């Protein structure tokens, strides 16, 4: 069931996503940071593919990398920050921030995994699947049925949230003509 090519692909994508995330939060030029975040999003989409979440991978590439990140890049170029490269990129409190990040990661690791055992000793056992049965996951029709069946109300609420976000973004960013 486990063949080494998929494992090698997973570990490559894990290493690449951690590297690009570190580079994204430490680069001086904001546009370089954005491009490293793009690399991070694409590698996370690859991990979604390996986890049998094909629809999530497609949404990750189309919505995250294609829409949200381009939106960030547009605003970054609209603001035109030439002094950003010259100034210090971190505040003077950055060692505290690093301690906070490392501490949170260690805490989450301990809370989720239970021990430092790599197989996830603190997690409940996986669901068993009858041999010969089709894998029920990663299936677009099943995600669609769940989204329009038991999750219909949260789905509509997500559309309301997006509508509110559109209206508030227009109201906030509008240039006020009269005082």
């Amino acid at each position: 069931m486990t063949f080494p090519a998929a494992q090698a692909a997973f570990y490559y994508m894990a290493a690449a996503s951690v590297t690009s995330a570190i580079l994204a939060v430490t680069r001086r030029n904001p546009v370089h940071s954005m491009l490293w975040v793009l690399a991070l999003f694409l590698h996370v989409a690859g991990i979604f593919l390996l986890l049998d979440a094909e629809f999530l991978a497609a949404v990750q590439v189309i919505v995250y990398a294609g829409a949200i990140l381009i939106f960030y890049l547009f605003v970054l170029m609209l603001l035109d920050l030439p002094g950003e490269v010259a100034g210090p990129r971190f505040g003077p409190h950055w060692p505290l921030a690093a301690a906070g990040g490392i501490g949170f990661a260690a805490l989450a690791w301990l809370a989720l995994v239970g021990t430092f055992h790599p197989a996830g000793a603190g997690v409940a056992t996986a669901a068993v699947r009858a041999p010969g049965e089709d894998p029920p996951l990663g299936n677009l029709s099943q995600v669609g049925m769940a989204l329009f069946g038991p999750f219909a109300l949260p789905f509509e609420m997500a559309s309301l949230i997006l509508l509110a976000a559109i209206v508030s973004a227009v109201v906030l960013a509008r240039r006020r003509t009269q005082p």
Partner: protein
Amino acid sequence: MIVPVGVVLALSAVLFGIGVFGFLARRNLILMLVSIEVMLNAVNLSLAGFSRHFDDPRGQILALFVIAVAAAEAGVGLGLVIALNRNKPGASVTDLTELKW
């Protein structure tokens, strides 16, 4: 499952920690928002890992809602950044000291 679920969760925790560091340490408002996106991505990763582990599509549904909320957050946050930039040029949090006593 090609890798144990603990590996996916550990990767998610590391990515979340990097996002926390970026949010706390960077001074550029836009890069702070991008660090939030990194954190949300880490959460999506652990949701997808749990979904695969428990053979249950609800994790993926939850990740889709997280993506929708991230899009809304990006819209409102960048609108705020533009509005702030109109009053005071630049996108650094150290310039926004009007409310400090």
